[in-house]
């Protein structure tokens, strides 16, 4: 059984693609195009974070009794992602290309190493430990955007 692993890993890849897609207008200095694609990415990213924080992590914490462990680190890294997103809003407002490029790079690296930990450890553990991962998955899919 690897429902959660599969679903969430696919969603990570989707987010990667949407962000990669936003990079071309940024590289070309097309701010209107960038802003639109960046917003699309942010809404997908935030949706992902909400699914984890409101459904998956509590389910993991309840099933294992571990609240100060991996989910705490994951939540804190989510906060860091949100902080970068907030900084990007300022960079877009001031059309600061170097800053925006640096923020994208930082965010990509943060997300990649965060996802690696989730995909290699947290999701497999969820699939193994959760009493009813099919219903957890259904709950995640019903989280409103």
């Amino acid at each position, binding site marked *: 059984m690897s429902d959660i692993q599969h679903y969430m890993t696919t969603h990570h890849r989707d987010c990667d693609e949407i962000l990669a897609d936003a990079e071309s207008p940024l590289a070309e200095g097309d701010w209107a195009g960038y802003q639109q694609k960046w917003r699309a990415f942010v809404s997908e990213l935030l949706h992902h974070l909400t699914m984890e924080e409101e459904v998956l992590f509590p389910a993991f914490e309840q099933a294992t009794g571990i609240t100060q462990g991996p989910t705490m680190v994951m939540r804190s890294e989510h906060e860091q992602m949100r902080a970068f997103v907030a900084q990007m809003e300022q960079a877009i407002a001031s059309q600061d290309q170097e800053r925006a490029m640096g923020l994208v790079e930082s965010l990509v*690296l943060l997300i990649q190493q965060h996802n690696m930990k989730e995909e290699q450890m947290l999701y497999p553990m969820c699939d193994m430990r959760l009493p009813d991962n099919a219903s957890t998955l259904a709950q995640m899919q019903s989280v409103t955007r």
Partner: protein
Amino acid sequence: MRLSGLQFDNIPALNIPFRFYLTAPIFAILTGVLLIFWGEQIWLSRWMPITLATTHLIALGVVAMIMFGSLFQLLPVLCGTPIPINSKGAIVFISLLSFGILCLSAAFLQQLSFLPALFLLSISLLSFGVILIYTLWFNASGFYTRTPVLLAVIMLALTIILGFSFLLNYQTGYFGALPKYWTNIHAAFGTLGWVTLLIITISFQVIPMFHVTPEFPVTIKNHYPFGLFILLISLAIELLFSNSHVTFALIATLLATYAIAALKQLSLRKRKLPDTTIKFWQLSLSSLLVCSFLLVVNLFTLSSKQLPFSLDSIIGVIFVVGVVLSVIQGMLLKIVPFLITLHLQQHAMKYPMGMGLMPDHYAIISRQHGKQLYWIHLGTLVIVVMSAFIPSLTKLVGILFIINWGFLWLMISRAYNAFSRIKLDISNA
């Protein structure tokens, strides 16, 4: 899956890898100085004192120094286990190693006996090797990385043991003049075994992660590190009895197909932002392709001596400067800001108010500086290859080395200072 396997925060203190990164450029600069004064002689033969001194300054002082520093950082991430060392231990290790390398070069230049080098290097390298092999053997996990890293370290151990026996022999004269066979094996295990094996293994992990490319094909990931190791061992055995053109050609083919596969991965990256690290990787992999081609050419010209210059030396410099120093600098450009961000994030977990103060990637090393570093390095590579034909250019190579690595040293130390400053700001936020 054990819960204890979830070690999210056992990465070493930032000053541990950075001490290695800040020491290595000093050895490159020293090499540059030697090249300015005695460089022309390096093209005469690989047995010239200056050739031996500079190759070992680069191999141990620059390449091994940076790779050791990176292993402290990578093992927790790739294999889930730290190398047990604290800041003090790192300082002692780096000092012993550094003085050992200096003594070794002085001994090659006939200024010193080999005994101090032997003493210092055996304490530092052997203890590091034992700790590393122990850690990998008993504590490490990670299907794609544990065994290949272990194979690379075994190659390093064999290279070092051979090196030590040469030094003992120089000192005592016990075996008389060494047959070329043993030094060839020492060089092959060091360059193609330890260095290349480690680069290949690490590239499987960092190229998909840093550049968001698809994963490497499973056949390559599963078989290439093993294949290279087996080929090198059989090369060593065959060379004892006869020449081994087939094995050599197989090694060259393996390296060339790896280079092509990795270049293809990079071309499949979906990201669109320009990235100097990609250029460094492409330069390194193209150089590897050239080297493997020349290795095969060398097989056919070896007996007939048709060439007016030494193809061996050209392969050597393209490998060292083109393949190894390119990938090392490209990785440093990416990993230095990455590590700083990682450590600042951990710090900001304790001081959440400071999260907004996190610097962006290019605020730590600017894109402009990265690009400049690339062009200086590319220039160095071109001039170093040209100087194989025009030895008087070697002085210029020395100057470029000093500029290149002085610049890199400045960037890394400025990045570290920025880290300390921002860390303080975050605590005060």
